[in-house]
């Protein structure tokens, strides 16, 4: 199909971008990598009178190691994140989630900011941001505000970013000490959206007890989810005393709106969601104990 007619804008500074967004109202949409938006426009599932292409906007690309955090520009491509030694060393959960995103062609164009702002519930990056309590920077004509990942995803394909705002950067905490990080997902084919998936970050203290834990779930609701019940169940236990299967069950027991569609009914997603939590947990703990 061909998209409906639209006006195309290509600002070069963040200020110009948010000025445009503020002036054009809700008939305008930010275009970054286009890997989700362009197919939707072509199928006419979404119609926008104005596209504001942010690929030439300065200052919203790049990976910066700061004190105890890594700050990544929203316009940074997934491919750049995949190649980055800083991210691999300092935010392994993000690095390990990246190769699971579609195919390399998609990652050459798709961006960190685009993935988070589109907020597909089956996407990896939103769950990683949740699991690590990342902080998101949002720019408007009034200035920058910061939103925690836990407050960012507000509904199906809906985030805290308003129509006149632009997501500009995401800051991830660097976990010090003994940590383990793993992502596991179940998809029909290589590169497909996950039917269910989990990302697990676990930190162990000197005695091998869990002193830090973040479990993010994707594909299991209209938004990415944390698993607070499972996390608090594991907290304080010796890593070896945590039963991964029980942990998986705890993480998925109370899920309310598990998707049900042609590819999998809800109970299948819930079951394999538990399996992905268990598998990711095992790998993360193995890494934390070895390190």
């Amino acid at each position: 199909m061909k998209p409906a007619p639209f006006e195309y804008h290509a600002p070069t500074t963040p200020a110009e971008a948010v000025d445009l967004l503020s002036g054009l109202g809700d008939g305008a949409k930010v275009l970054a990598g286009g890997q989700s938006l362009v197919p939707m426009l072509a199928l006419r599932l979404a119609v926008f009178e104005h596209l504001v292409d942010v690929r030439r906007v300065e200052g919203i690309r790049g990976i910066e190691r700061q004190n105890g955090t890594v700050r990544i520009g929203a316009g940074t491509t997934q491919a750049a994140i995949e190649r980055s030694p800083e991210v691999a060393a300092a935010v392994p959960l993000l690095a390990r989630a990246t190769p699971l995103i579609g195919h390399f062609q998609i990652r050459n164009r798709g961006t960190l900011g685009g993935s988070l702002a589109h907020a597909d519930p089956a996407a990896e990056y939103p769950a990683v941001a949740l699991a690590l309590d990342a902080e998101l920077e949002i720019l408007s004509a009034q200035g920058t505000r910061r939103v925690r990942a836990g407050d960012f995803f507000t509904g199906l394909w809906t985030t805290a970013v308003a129509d006149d705002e632009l997501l500009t950067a995401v800051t991830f905490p660097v976990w010090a000490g003994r940590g383990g990080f793993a992502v596991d997902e179940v998809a029909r084919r290589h590169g497909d959206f996950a039917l269910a998936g989990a990302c697990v970050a676990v930190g162990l203290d000197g005695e091998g007890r869990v002193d830090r834990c973040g479990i993010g779930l994707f594909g299991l609701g209209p938004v990415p989810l944390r698993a607070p019940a499972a996390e608090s169940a594991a907290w304080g236990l010796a890593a070896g005393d945590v039963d991964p299967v029980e942990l998986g069950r705890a993480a998925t027991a109370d899920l309310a709106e598990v998707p049900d569609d042609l590819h999998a009914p809800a109970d299948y997603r819930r079951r394999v969601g538990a399996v992905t939590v268990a598998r990711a947990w095992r790998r993360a703990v193995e890494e934390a104990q070895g390190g």
Partner: protein
Amino acid sequence: MDQPTLTAGTTRYAGARIARVEDARLLTGHGTFVDDVVRPGMLHACFVRSPMARARIVGVDPAAALGLPGVVAVFVAADLNPDVHESWYTSMGAAMPDPPKPPLAEGEVRFVGDPVALVVAVDRYVAEDAVDLVALDLDPLPPVVDYRTARESEHLVHEAYPGNVAGEIGGMPAEMLAPAFDSAAHVTSATIHQQAYLPVPMETRGLVAEWEAAGGELTVWASTQSPHEVRMFGARLLGLPEHRVRVIARDTGGGFGQKVLPMREDMCVLLAARKVPGALKWIEDRRENLLTAGQSRHEHATVRVALDEDGALVAAEIDHVQDVGAYPMPWPVHAGAAVGVFFPGAYRVPKARFSYTGLYSNTVGRTAYRGPWQFESVAREVVLDIAARQAGIDPIELRRRNLLRHGELPYTNASGMAYSDVTPLETFEHALGLLDLDGFRRQQADARATGRLLGLGTSSYIEPTATGMGFYGTEGATIRIEPSGAVNVYVAGGSCGNSLETTVVQLVADALGCDIADVNTIQGDTAVTPFGAGTGGSRSGPMLAGAVAETAAGLRDRIVAIAAHKLEAAPDDIELADSRASVRGTPAAGLSLADIAAAAYFEPASLPDGVPPGLEASGRYHARAMSVWANATHVCTCEVDPETGLVTLLRYIVSEDCGPMINPAVVEGQIAGGSVQGIGGALYEHLAYDAEGNPLSSTLMDYLLPTIAEVPVIEYGHVETPAPNPGGYKGVGEGGAIGAPPAVVNAVADALAPLGVTVTQLPLSPAAILALIAEAGGGAAS
């Protein structure tokens, strides 16, 4: 049998993996597909399609669309449908009962996607904008979505078909086989279900139709498997003299049965072509292709097989019911009956019967798809594994006891099909040898001990190819050796990936003793080539070989006679090789084909008595047999993850017998493509509808095709049993899609058998597999 032979001397090209003639242009982006055709003043078409599965058409208002700048016309049923002169397919004949086929929907829409109006605009973008502006007033009606309950429904898809029955046919009545079943040591019954799926050609449907009013000529660039069918059907449709309709098919990106016949959209574009001021182009997009090009494979059957105490088959029966959608290709009964007739397959089955029922539904109509009758292999191979397990026999052993072997041929099966020159058991053993059956069973047992589920599945089939019947039974060729010595071969074509440009030059080069670089082929233009039925029915290899044999033999004799005369040698002493004629023993003294051609055209007085001037010939091959039988065995191993239901294919092996091979690379390409389509059908592809008849898989995000990441490297074994026709070649195009689904299903079933699971339904999605495990009482997470 007096069939002409195919080779002038030693075969040089046939049998070799010659690089494809087509590749140079296709792999560098220089092919000419229909969307590459640009004509001056060309306009673009887009269809308004029904959003409902069934509704009464109250009104179609084009006013707002006509007001959009760039819109040239909006046609509704009243504009196009009355212009139909005759509407029937040459390949089926005028007398074949035709399911309804209005170009645009009138009265009622009958499936989501049913074309209701045709918008013509200056480009496709504007056309799509205009489609959104056409006001469709529809009065919803209750749709018949599930064909399995269509017979009992109070609602009719088509008024003229009570019970929604498109047709029924049967072999002998069930009572006649009852004694065989009643007295058998083992009887196994199962109901096997296959989902709707479809060919997904890389190039969707499309055509450009250009009417030139001054001369009254219509030129059609078509994405088609049969340019001549498009011409003949189109000329009749529009009431045009046939010689004023020219159909050109350059490159076509996949057909698989979806492009064998002009469909309703093609009819609309042809009918509209004379009403618009420029060439009219319609290119289907992927969503339309998945919504409206047609569905296949949607059927189920209750099957029963009976074994004696030694595991020999004594009887088999299939009661088969098929979904034909709302507007199927004609004629469903004929195509559907093939399932029952071929059900006994390549096995020794003394008694068999079948019944067939085709039912309409408010979904897209059934279309042909590579081996349209392949459900006979799905049903048979799956139930044979079930029967084996129930009788306590290894499924491999059951095959060994019952597969036909070359030595016992000819064999007439229970349906009256007479098989000859096939090797079912031989390909079975060959494939298992390539696998290392014992090695796999050890691997399987070791894996089982650690909780991993590995499985092995086989499927063996026999398929009819290169039929000699009707429209398909002959193939013509014209060979012109030009005055320059260039050899040009004209055949009808219809290639959509079948490598016909390569195989035909291999054959002609051998037949005339030419260097292959001197041979060219011209295909896909009805103004230029002889009539041919096109591709389909696994016919092209054998039929082209026959056409070349018929045509080249006489030309070769003339070349030899001219050379003998000029070289003062006996014709028997003349050798043809590398586009030269020489006397045996003195290769340096000879004449080039260019020299001979120059003499034939420019110095006819120098030719020997009885040899006519020029070097051109036309011939037409008649295939004698109703079918040239080909066979193969597919073997598949897999691992099933019991926690997620995901299936990983480990090895995929095909031992096939298509006789000698014109080009082994082409044969393997055909097998690979068909096998991947079959793997897709077994595990991934599903053209699904919801309860209201809304399609659920209208993009490639939801309609899942296997990619190279899902398919192992396919291993090939070749058995070569010649058929009686020229060259001994048999068809091979459809086999992969027939053999693959049951091999994959059986592999999964073998992996799950220790859990007490029986598999009777496709596709085997991960959710379906976990549900089967849970139902059988297994399946807690590890």
